[in-house]
């Protein structure tokens, strides 16, 4: 399916501009972020657990499986990545299930910047996006010019989406403005020559920006809510939980909290922002729990690959096996799905 991108109305742009005073200076930004409602950890986790008990069967399950497949950012982020590995992954993204061509395509192939050109070529006109982790992924420990060069490099190679990591050190030491400015700068670096940064992005004038928080390192739920607002104010098109490279990655409570932040940001500014949980989501059952959270927190408008993604590599095969089970009535096995 073609992935569309937001076209902000005049009204939304106006409301967003009226938020400008909260980012006017360090103090204003701090006061705003610390004035957001607190998060009660027990209550948040209980709500996430309750949503996880929804029982999704038959037609709803079939729908959810296909939806989840279409939302996957199929990912390879290894030091050992080669063009051959990336091409194989791209082929899988186009035809996830070689035995069943009715399977939807994935949303994007996610690679390191030096593999963008390879992926772009392999995907051709399939409509699948190429996402690239730039900005000194996964640690983010590099000077800003290096991060911006990394980003421009990926965009120039044809990346449709940039997954940037924030400077967790700056955030944890309370230098919110530094994080804000950095996201803004990367957002500008996402623009293609001649394009603008916050306008019709996607296939045209700028790459879509996904901002990765590494929530496992931010530790507290209050931090997660603050960083979500910070990133959205700075122009993130998507907010993303984690790199997949640390011990604690996406969890249902953290994702629920980010969905709630997105909901509140939309209510305040009219700007729609997407959410991407990443890392550790491996089973169909888990993926469906996330979809239920989206459905009951943000609803229909977010239930598309334009606004919700799974950062995953091993999830796809479990979804395909469940899909085969629904269509044949029997469980297959790992040899009936491809290993790439």
């Amino acid at each position: 399916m073609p992935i569309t991108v937001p076209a902000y109305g005049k009204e939304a742009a106006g409301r967003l501009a009226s938020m400008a005073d909260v980012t006017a200076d360090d103090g204003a930004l701090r006061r705003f972020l610390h004035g957001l409602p607190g998060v009660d950890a027990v209550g948040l986790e209980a709500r996430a657990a309750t949503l996880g008990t929804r029982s999704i069967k038959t037609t709803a399950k079939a729908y959810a499986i296909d939806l989840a497949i279409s939302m996957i950012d199929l990912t390879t982020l290894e030091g050992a990545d080669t063009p051959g590995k990336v091409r194989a992954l791209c082929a899988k993204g186009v035809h996830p299930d070689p035995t069943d061509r009715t399977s939807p395509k994935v949303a994007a192939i996610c690679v390191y910047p030096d593999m963008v050109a390879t992926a772009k070529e392999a995907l051709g006109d399939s409509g699948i996006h190429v996402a690239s982790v730039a900005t000194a992924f996964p640690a983010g420990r590099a000077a800003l010019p290096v991060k911006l060069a990394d980003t421009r490099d990926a965009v120039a190679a044809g990346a449709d989406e940039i997954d940037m990591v924030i400077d967790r050190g700056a955030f944890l030491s309370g230098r919110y403005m530094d994080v804000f400015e950095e996201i803004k700068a990367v957002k500008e670096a996402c623009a293609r020559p001649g394009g603008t940064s916050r306008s019709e992005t996607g296939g045209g004038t700028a790459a879509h920006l996904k901002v990765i928080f590494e929530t496992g390192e931010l530790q507290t739920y209050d931090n997660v809510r603050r960083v979500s607002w910070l990133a959205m104010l700075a122009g993130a098109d998507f907010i993303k939980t984690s790199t997949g490279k640390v011990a604690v990655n996406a969890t249902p409570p953290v994702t629920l909290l980010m969905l709630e932040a997105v909901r509140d940001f939309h209510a305040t500014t009219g700007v729609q922002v997407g959410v991407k949980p990443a890392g550790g989501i491996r089973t169909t059952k888990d993926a469906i729990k996330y979809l239920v959270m989206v459905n009951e927190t943000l609803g229909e408008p977010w239930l598309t690959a334009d606004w919700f993604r799974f950062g995953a590599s091993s999830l796809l095969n479990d979804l395909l096996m469940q899909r085969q089970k629904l269509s044949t009535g029997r469980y297959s096995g790992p040899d009936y799905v491809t290993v790439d």
Partner: protein
Amino acid sequence: MTFDYAPAPESRAVVDIAPSYGLFIDGEFAPASDGKVFKTVSPSSEEVLSEVAQASAEDVDRAVKAARKAFEKWSALPGAERAKYLFRIARIIQERSRELAVLESLDNGKPIRESRDADLPLVAAHFFYYAGWADKLDHAGYGANPRPLGVAGQVIPWNFPLLMLAWKIAPALATGNTVVLKPAETTPLSALFFADICRQAGLPKGVVNILTGDGSTGASLVGHPGIDKVAFTGSTEVGKAIARTVAGTDKKVTLELGGKAANIVFDDAPLDQAVEGIVNGIFFNQGHVCCAGSRLLVQESVADELLDALKRRMRTLRVGDPLDKNTDIGAINSAEQLARITALADAGEAEGAERWSPSCELPSSGYWFAPTLFTGVTQAHRIAREEIFGPVLSVLTFRTPAEAVEKANNTPYGLSAGIWTEKGSRMLWMANKLRAGIVWSNTFNKFDPASPFGGYKESGYGREGGRHGLEAYLAPSSPEGAR
């Protein structure tokens, strides 16, 4: 295409309901002495589930005598021996929990999600908890060698049939009492299944007796001269009648009655979690909860924001088939209760409060009431004063903490309250000021066997649960050697 959840019904095949049940007296099921029976229906479909015996005064007498006889041996058992029976019962409840959850949802109308995830785990937990106390009564803080009272007459309501049974029977047996229990007229089945569990556990005959029947059975039981202790959970009106009946006798009494709890939200509250707590506080179990947070007190500065969020959340509540695993709100327990809820909600409108419900399609048969919110409620409205016992929330506002305390305490009831704030000092200050048996902070409707439960004012007296719950079943410790 929309993400509609396909029905996910729990199977009814796991529970085998007999066409009729007798009374459980002295370890045997027997018909009522005068042969009278009544029907129990499923409130979600009005289907007749079974026919149960209507116990007469004569049956009450037989049951009390059986309990009296059993008391001699049961109370003489070492605590560790009684604990074995209680642990066994707890384990059987766990083993049969799916069956019991389905049965409870059928007979009561509550969603399977709640009977499965809340009721049954708590039922087993109460038996486990009090089993643990049975051999440690000397250390419960009620003196050395505390003694049981004798025969306990227990009358329980229809909102949590099996859980209320557990709250009553577990501490009574742990302390060495024997019981005659009357479940509510509309929800007798799980108590009868519990009778079967007692037999399965090999509990000595007569230790637990179950009498089904209506209010007249309850009145005979409470008035029977052979019982030593009355434990009642139900309406304040019936509670007052019971208090009058036992006045002047030496029967010990605990009453757990109505409530009109304040759920107080300050402007610095964790708002998303407060919304969940409000929903859980009033829509849990269709609002058939005596400690339900039926009065929402919101600080004016966040009232609009909170109400928007609450309405948005209420739109996602799923009302319907209790056996569907995705149902959030099930059926109202009886036609009578539905009529009461309807009348009070109408009074709310007539008195000038603004009524709001999310659009939801209610099933055509059975007893249903959509989750309802009233704004613009004042202390003078009936819906702010009277217990509705249904999914109806009254919203009031306040400006300062002192005003919140004043409004929260301005009720004839005093069972529970909730405080939502991120400020610890305010939370503790409020908790000290609130005249309520339980004060939850940043949560609501949390139950744990180790935590005492019981009310102030017209919400009753005595405590159930925890160490405190033992006291109601123990006589003051005797002087050394004077047994």
